[in-house]
């Protein structure tokens, strides 16, 4: 049975989180689509307010800015709180043009108590051109469960083929339950399923177009006590690339260029034959005087 992890969005500022540690998969829910929770707005919302089109390099630059602006260090010289991404497994589930991208994330949290509170996982999925997420579908799914939050940004036109569309991105915020255990490393496992749809791909002689997914951006967002009260901060979990299995490729059927002439000729020939059938039937119709 699939465990669907979703992210909830909250509408009001000042998210209170608890950082739960467990060794089991947690179902999280997706909340109201379209708005971002506190963290001075979603990262993607900040990005798309300044950029029209999603590019990896400009997004990375913005992410670095956000991380330095919202550091979780108490003092400038302090080390960042340690969080380790111990495992990331990605799979594409389903067949055809409508599938789910499943991401199973394992986080390791050290036993020392954090000054951090109410942490949540933030996953940013920068979708390759060729696939899109349907914002209305995600909104419907949100209303069917309890979700933390989700937002779809960029080119969300559902109808255009990939040659005429730009990339889009999905930001997912996840709540998770925890139980504080002292003295031992805590392991947290979260699974997120994101329904995606294929756009009509550019023509290719093989008849299939391959769309490769990159590694999602995984962050942890927490609240911490600052000099002027509670504030939000961001941590990037450290990870060992060898333990991350992120290669996901979606083969999408596409038109074949060499069909063009035959298809055009036969299409119009059939249209004319059909026209002749109707015209002859009409002309031969015995209308009474």
């Amino acid at each position: 049975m699939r465990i669907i992890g979703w992210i909830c969005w909250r509408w009001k500022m000042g998210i209170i989180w608890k950082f739960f540690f467990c060794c089991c998969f947690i179902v999280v829910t997706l909340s109201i689509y379209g708005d971002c929770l506190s963290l001075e707005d979603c990262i993607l919302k900040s990005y798309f307010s300044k950029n029209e089109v999603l590019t990896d390099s400009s997004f990375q630059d913005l992410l670095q800015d956000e991380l330095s602006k919202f550091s979780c260090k108490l003092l400038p010289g302090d080390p960042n709180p340690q969080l380790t991404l111990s495992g990331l497994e990605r799979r594409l589930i389903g067949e055809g043009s409508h599938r789910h991208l499943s991401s199973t994330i394992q986080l390791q949290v050290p036993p020392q108590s954090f000054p951090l509170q109410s942490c949540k996982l933030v996953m940013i999925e920068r979708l390759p051109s060729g696939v899109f997420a349907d914002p209305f579908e995600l909104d419907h799914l949100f209303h069917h469960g309890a979700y933390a939050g989700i937002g779809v940004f960029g080119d969300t036109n559902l109808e255009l083929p990939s040659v005429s569309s730009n990339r889009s991105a999905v930001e997912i915020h996840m709540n998770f339950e925890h139980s504080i255990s002292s003295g031992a490393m805590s392991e947290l496992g979260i699974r997120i399923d994101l329904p995606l749809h294929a756009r009509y791909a550019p023509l290719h002689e093989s008849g299939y177009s391959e769309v490769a997914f990159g590694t999602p951006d995984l962050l942890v967002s927490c609240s911490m006590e600052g000099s002027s009260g509670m504030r939000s901060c961001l941590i990037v979990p450290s990870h060992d690339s060898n333990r991350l299995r992120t290669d996901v490729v979606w083969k999408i059927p596409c038109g074949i260029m060499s069909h063009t002439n035959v298809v055009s000729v036969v299409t119009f020939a059939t249209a004319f034959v059909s026209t002749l059938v109707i015209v002859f039937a009409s002309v031969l119709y015995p209308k009474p005087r």
Partner: protein
Amino acid sequence: MTAKAPMNLRRLLIGSAVFRLALILYGEWQDAHMEVRYTDVDYLVFSDAASLMASGSSPYKRTTYRYSPLLAFLLLPNSVLHRSWGKFIFSASDLLVGYFIYKILKQRKVAEDLCLYSVMVWLLNPFTFTIGTRGNCEPIVCAMILWILICLMNGKIIQAAVWYGLVVHFRIYPIIYSLPIILVLNPRYIQLGNGMEASTRYNLWTAAKSMFSKERVLFGLVSGGIFFLCTGLFFHLYQWEFLNEALLYHLTRADPRHNFSVYFYHIYLQYGRQLSLVEKLISFLPQSIVQLVLISTFAQDLPFCFFLQTVAFVAFNKVITAQYFVWFFCLLPLILPWSDMKLKWEGLGCVGLWMGAQLHWLLWGYLLEFKGQNVFLQLWMASLVFLLANASVMAVFIRLQRFSPIFLQIKVSDSKSGVKSQ
């Protein structure tokens, strides 16, 4: 008409209404408890657009809302009363279509039992009762088209023109009926006021007088006026967003995604390439030729002309979705009493051919969309078969239809009657 007959129509309408109510309630349950919705995605678009309108915003802020603001206005109570308000309106229109079918056939002196069977063809058609209860707005358009026919049959030209202008604003495709309506408003068949004297002399002057008769000019001016009034009003309110989404999108739509149209694969393969003038003309020609031939042959039998035109319009269109079929399903009952088609085996043969071609297409569509197999060529060939099936069915209908004009020619001694309908 016997005392029992109205009771049968009443029972039929009441039974159909109860069934539709049950479907709407079931739809609410399915939407709440199952991942796959009963409600059409388009209904959610209408509802969202209505909510935006209720809050003072443009309905076109809702992406993929490509309808008249009138539809969003009609669904304003979705936000205030209940989200299913629109489904009730559409299902009520669906029942109204059934009643109008009965009214038209009775006026054309069709026997009672045949009237009721024809009404059943509409009311008991699974496609019909699911389309309204799922929240599709086409029953409203169908009801308007049939009301226009009733107005014309009763000589109410101005009323027909008002509704015609409105329905073209609402859904554009009824523009194809303009020429047959103008043709049928022949002063020999329908006259306002005292009418004109019949004359045995036929010269340029009488020809011009006949072509630009009072009835035709009035119909054209009133319907055109209503259309441009609506367009102007909503352009004033919603600017280019309205014009682009509600009007221009439909006129220029060329969807490369798979649909029943024979042109879908051609459009996909050519997508992004600028088509030459010759290529554009070639794709336009079959539709134009068929429409003109059908109009010139069958205009006087207006319901039959509408039916054939609509089937042809849908079949030769660049995009065909299943909801378009209801445009001619509502006209089919109006022509059946004059068809010599026997159920066995001509009728069943036509149904089998049309449904079979559709199912064949759906099979390949399923393999492409839900199994991810590259079957574009097979799917395209299935669309060719579907077009040929449509043309064949049309040819059978034409061959077996008894010509029955809705108006008889006015005799000179009857010039004061104004209209003599059949």
